[in-house]
């Protein structure tokens, strides 16, 4: 009788002998899948870096964002000014760091507002159905028909003209947050509604209802937690869109006002100097590109990691 390697025998008979393997949670599995994707890791690193910049900008930036010395205007990158200086002597490193902070604050706030609008609407429409669902769907259709960025431009122009000034009193950053939030809630609403429509037919929901759980409890305790993973992905992908929207509005001159730095505005203002001072547009453009890419990679990575077919 042939003999077999003990390890192999051991391995081959393991299952039948019932040796226990350490079980892993869905989260751990997802985490493992996430970290296997190189681009997702790159995205995570970039996002962490940008969030770090945003949170610790006053500590990282060599100067305040409004500090300028005219005598240092238009200097090219050097040891003293690694990113150079702009036309009135701002240090570009500081401006880019604070510009990243502006982008992060606006993007996260706007997406949070979009969630506050879209998620409850989608949840209610999916849960209740009927007239509420009809109204929400019509709202979604109207908003979908309006080109997002153009509608945002229109809203900003109206606000900047002084209309609604009793409502929009929070300053220009707040105005931009509100406008982007108002024009970004639709995908989140649609996603939430679709999720709820799917999840509300699950047996655990039926079971919860059968023991007397209220609609509110069903929604908050059972449906919402299970709808979160795809929502996280959608939010992660909404953030670069918001970053781009803010940069676009500021590029057009209707977004963030100086001296608050905005990467989009810096790119816009650099255009007439592109033949002389290349550094004015390069670093803000790179920052926008890396921020958008980082969140996009992260979102894609999360989507693959949290794919329910693999859980």
């Amino acid at each position, binding site marked *: 009788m042939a003999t077999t390697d003990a390890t192999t025998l051991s391995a081959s008979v393991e299952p039948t002998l019932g040796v226990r393997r350490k079980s892993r949670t869905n989260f751990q599995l997802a985490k493992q899948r996430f970290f296997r994707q190189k681009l997702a890791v790159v995205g995570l690193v970039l996002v962490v870096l940008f969030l770090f910049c945003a949170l610790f900008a006053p500590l990282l930036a060599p100067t305040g964002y409004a500090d300028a010395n*005219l*005598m240092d205007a238009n200097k090219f990158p050097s040891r003293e000014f690694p990113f150079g200086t702009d036309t*009135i002597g701002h240090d570009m490193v500081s401006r880019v760091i604070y510009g990243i902070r502006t982008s992060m604050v606006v993007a996260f706030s706007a997406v949070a507002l979009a969630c506050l609008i879209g998620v409850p609407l989608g949840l209610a429409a999916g849960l209740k159905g009927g007239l509420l669902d009809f109204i929400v769907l019509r709202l979604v259709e109207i908003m979908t028909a309006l080109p997002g960025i153009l509608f945002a431009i229109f809203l900003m122009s109206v606000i900047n003209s*002084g209309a609604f000034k009793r409502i929009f009193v929070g300053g220009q950053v707040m105005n931009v947050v509100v406008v982007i939030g108002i024009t970004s809630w639709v995908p989140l609403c649609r996603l939430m509604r679709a999720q709820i429509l799917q999840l509300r037919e699950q047996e655990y929901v039926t079971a919860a209802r059968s023991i007397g759980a209220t609609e509110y409890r069903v929604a908050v305790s059972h449906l919402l937690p299970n709808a979160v993973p795809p929502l996280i992905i959608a939010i992660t992908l909404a953030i670069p869109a918001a970053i781009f929207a803010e940069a676009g509005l500021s590029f057009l001159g209707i977004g963030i*006002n*100086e001296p608050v730095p905005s990467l989009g505005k810096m790119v*816009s*203002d650099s255009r007439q100097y592109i033949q002389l*001072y290349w550094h004015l547009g390069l670093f803000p453009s790179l920052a926008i590109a890396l921020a958008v890419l980082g969140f996009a990679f992260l979102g894609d990575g999360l989507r693959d990691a949290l794919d329910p077919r693999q859980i």
Partner: protein
Amino acid sequence: MNEKNSLSEVLDQFPKDDPLSVSRRRFIAAGAAAMATGFLATNAGAAPLQGGRMATALRQGTPPADAAPPEKQLIIFPADVGIAKVLDFYEQVYQRPFVADLFSEPLVRMNREFEIIPGVADSWEGSEDGKTWTFKLRQGLTWTDGNPLTAADWVATFQYAANPEHAWDFTWFFRDVITGWNDAVDGKAGIDKVGVAQGASEYELVISTDVPAPYMPAMMLYSLPLSAAALKEHGSGVYNSDPATAVSCGPYVLSEWTPQQQIVYTKNPNYTGTMNVMVEKVINRLATPDTYFTMYQNNEVDYLEEPDPASLTLMMGDEATAKEVHSGVGDFPTWYIFFDVTKAPFDNKMVRQAWSHAIDRDTLKSQVLGPSGTPAYSWLAPGFPASQREALQDIQKFDPAMAKDLLSQAGFPDGKDFPKQTMWLRAPSPLDKTVAGALSAMLKENLNIEVELEEHDSAGFTAALNAKPTQILLGWVRYGMDYLDPSNMLSVWKTGGRHSWSNPDFDAKLKEASEYLGAPEERIKLFQEAERILVEDVPAVFVYHGTRVQFIKPWLKGDFLTPDKNGISAMHWPAYTTMDTVPEEIYVSSDAPDRG
């Protein structure tokens, strides 16, 4: 009046052998000559003013040897796409593209020596008391619809301008001057009471004023009429925004208006006036100002003015393109920060004074403006009649220690609790944005005050500025002369004028000086006293006087670039319009590339 030192920065910006340099003596002479011009016009019964240069070959109708054929006589100007809404002065002043005002001619025009010369009026005279001005119109001039050009056109135009329903954005210009104007604009009396009427015949226009107005002929530079018949038919002056309904008695007609793209004027084949223009087609190429330089480099436009510092550096850095750079006084503009002095915190004079001492104009000049401007400490620019910058220099001088001290006395030590401010900018050019950014940085550095910069389109800004009460608490804007007399520039600040500031002493002094018919030197002194009151009360921080830098393609030729008696070689203000002589002094040479 010693103007030497105050002029040095304007005149010595370029090396003496530089074509852009201007002699100091000539500059002073220009101001004095212009003032004399104004007084010549006041002499009732004196020979009508006939100033101007010798007729050129262009005026005689002989094309120069190097002129391009008629089909290539085309000039393209850039125009702000956000501003271009109408084309006529009396429709809306601040919503017109760069080239407008070609569909009629004013009563008088201005030549390149800043002299007032006959326009449609071939003579004029004032009454003994200076309150009645009679303009005799040339006969035989017609509109393209066949109607004759008569005094009725001016009567209809001025009544339209005074009509409160029209909401003309320039009504302040004639306020307290033309009889019945104030009441008509304020809706207290009918527009038929406005003191602009037909005289003894349909070719005689009579303007009545409430006060002696020796400057009236110069003021009539702004008298481009609309067609009375077209106004009656269409109800507004917007008829000139559509080629199908446009009516002209000027050298050009509107032939195309493609929104967001271009506005095209072509030579009026039925023109009956006296201007002999050679250029067949003039195009306003509509774009945003920050693209103008790229368009200029690509030969998409032939002209550009007030370039940003980077563009100017690039042009001056190359021997060939440096020849395309020209510089002139323009309309003697002053750029300034203005306040609504009726509202906190700017109702406090110490706050305004603190702001005026916090601006380092010299560094602004050396690091940002370059040849585009000179520091301003007063309202009237060097070279303008009655200018006295040196005498007033200390009132708003840069003194950060004094600025901090004043702000502290006003209740805001180190800027603490000073409300964050938003400065309105009117359709800012790249240079405007840079300057405003520098001002914001200086206020932060010297006073620890945060000033946000908010860009507005021209129409919205002007409407907010002119609203009574004004809607702008803090803003950055310019003003340049409308005619070469201190009464014009200083009247910007009179009660009910452009801003909310109201000072009875200033108003009284300005009135006294404006109506003064005695010795010119005494009149100058009165204006200087008025200006001192203005500067001392700081309703505005005067920052710089603009020098109009222009880029002009080498194929634009003619007398318009021949140095004037002050040595200035540039397209004189107000540029390509029937208000001046530029259209008659310019042509396109045969080496122009194909454009348009």
